[in-house]
């Protein structure tokens, strides 16, 4: 009984926004009196909303690229070597995940303020890369543990160069974990609000920042449509990951 209450408590908030978003009108209604796409129309008609969504998409895409480019080589190096201080490296890479976001947000605000980079896409992408790298690192490391390093040794004995081994032996074997890492990175960046709130300028407002101020200052019904779109993205990512994990051994 209590367990079912728990499940309901967990999923209800994510799902309740869906019917509300099709209600239309000035007031939030549940159950909706009539079905309409009006709130979605308003979302796409308002450049402040879809512009923020576009900015979030750009930031999340660039963040994902940078995070993977940095995390994959590092994860490979740490998975295949045993040297003193390796544990320390791992701890440093994972640390951003455990640091209170507000502390890092404040630090980046002071840092990028001095560099005159507040309000730029660059600062946002760099900040998000730091936040996202640990997750990508964990996902890739888990993938690398599943594969047999002997294959790489064999390839070397057969005369393949390092680059060729990495691209033709290692990477193809960790395709699924790489996809998981990319989905992770994209979604975390896309949904991130605290650091973005510190770094966003008028032209670089992301969707979560816009949403945060909209919830704080005026509860606009458009929020229901935005929330539904975000939940749909989360659900897609969640199902995508489950499918990928089923495929990998």
């Amino acid at each position, binding site marked *: 009984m209590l*367990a079912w*209450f*728990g*499940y309901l*408590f*967990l*999923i209800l*908030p*994510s799902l*309740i926004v869906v019917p509300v978003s099709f209600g239309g009108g000035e007031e939030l209604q*549940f159950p909706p009196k009539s079905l309409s796409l009006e709130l979605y129309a308003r979302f796409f008609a308002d450049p402040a909303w879809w512009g923020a969504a576009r900015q979030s998409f750009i930031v999340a895409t660039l963040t994902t690229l*940078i995070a993977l*480019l*940095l995390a994959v*080589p*590092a994860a490979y*190096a*740490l998975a*295949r*070597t*045993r*040297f003193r201080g390796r544990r320390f*490296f791992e701890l440093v890479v*994972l640390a*951003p*995940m455990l*640091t*209170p*976001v*507000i*502390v*890092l947000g*404040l*630090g*980046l605000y*002071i840092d990028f303020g001095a560099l005159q980079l507040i309000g730029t896409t660059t600062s946002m992408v760099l900040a998000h*890369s*730091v936040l996202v*790298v640990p*997750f990508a690192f964990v996902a890739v490391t*888990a993938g690398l543990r599943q594969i047999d390093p002997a294959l*790489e*040794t064999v390839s*070397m004995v057969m005369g393949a160069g*390092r680059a060729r*081994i990495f691209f033709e032996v290692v990477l193809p074997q960790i395709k699924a974990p790489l996809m998981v890492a990319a989905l*992770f990175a994209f979604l975390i960046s896309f*949904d991130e*609000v605290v650091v973005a709130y510190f770094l966003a300028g008028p032209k670089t407002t992301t969707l*979560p920042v816009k*949403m*945060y101020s909209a*919830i704080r200052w005026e509860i606009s019904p458009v929020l*229901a449509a935005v*929330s539904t779109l*975000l*939940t749909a993205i989360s659900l897609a*990512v969640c199902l995508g990951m*489950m499918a990928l*994990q089923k495929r990998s051994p």
Partner: protein
Amino acid sequence: MYHAILDAKAVALLLGPLCLLLAAFFVHPLLLVAWTSVGSGRLGFDAYASLAKSTLFLRVLANTFEISALATLVSLVLGYVIALHIAHASPRRRTLYLVMIMLPFWTSILVKSFAFMVVLGDQGLVNRALASLSNGAVHLEMIFNRAGVVIGMVNYLLPFMVLPILASLLAQDPTLHKAAEIMGAGPIRIFMRITLPLSSPGVQAGVLMNMTLAMGMYITPALLGGRRDMMLANLVDFYTRQTLDWNAASAIAIVLLVISGVFIALLARAGGTRNVLEQAHA
């Protein structure tokens, strides 16, 4: 010892870029916060001394501990029940339950906060249902107060409680339970003497993880709490943006960082960091 393929130079090349990013945009900003907290070296520990005397800071600090502890406690009770339920389900249903645990984990905290406003608000679902059942006699204030923050936080923390407890439940040898049953122990006794003690590593990891996350929460208290439910993270933001007192903001941030550090150290000692993180993201 190095792997045959990678020598020291290759390892340095592979690790270098990531280390640069983290040095420039993780370690450096944190050092800047520490440096700002001592007034860039000019003020020494003045900011900390005035925090110790500030009633606002002390009240917010107490709030932060109270709210976090309460949310963790609720999350522990609910999380344990859910973990038990999942552990006893058939593998097929277990997947379904796990999706239900993981979906909120992936939902934006803003969506969840907004949803709680729709559900728990003044004109929200629960209050309208109560009003129509009781002819308008019953009305609950569930947001913009302590209850709202705790409800929102438990919703966020629950997956981090369920996963480690579930892992420690699944790791238990089922023959132990069978043996106890044959020897005549009732279900309550089996739970108290076997299940519960054996799950204590999971409980420890879950509680510490919950506390670490709860202490640093920003969005939930800002959106679902009232003026008197401000937490440390909100106070940092308040000093940064409202009063522009970066010195005080940084000192509070360092206090928060140290508190989280203590919880993380405890978590690492309980052997949990890696496991919890890997379960959460596996």
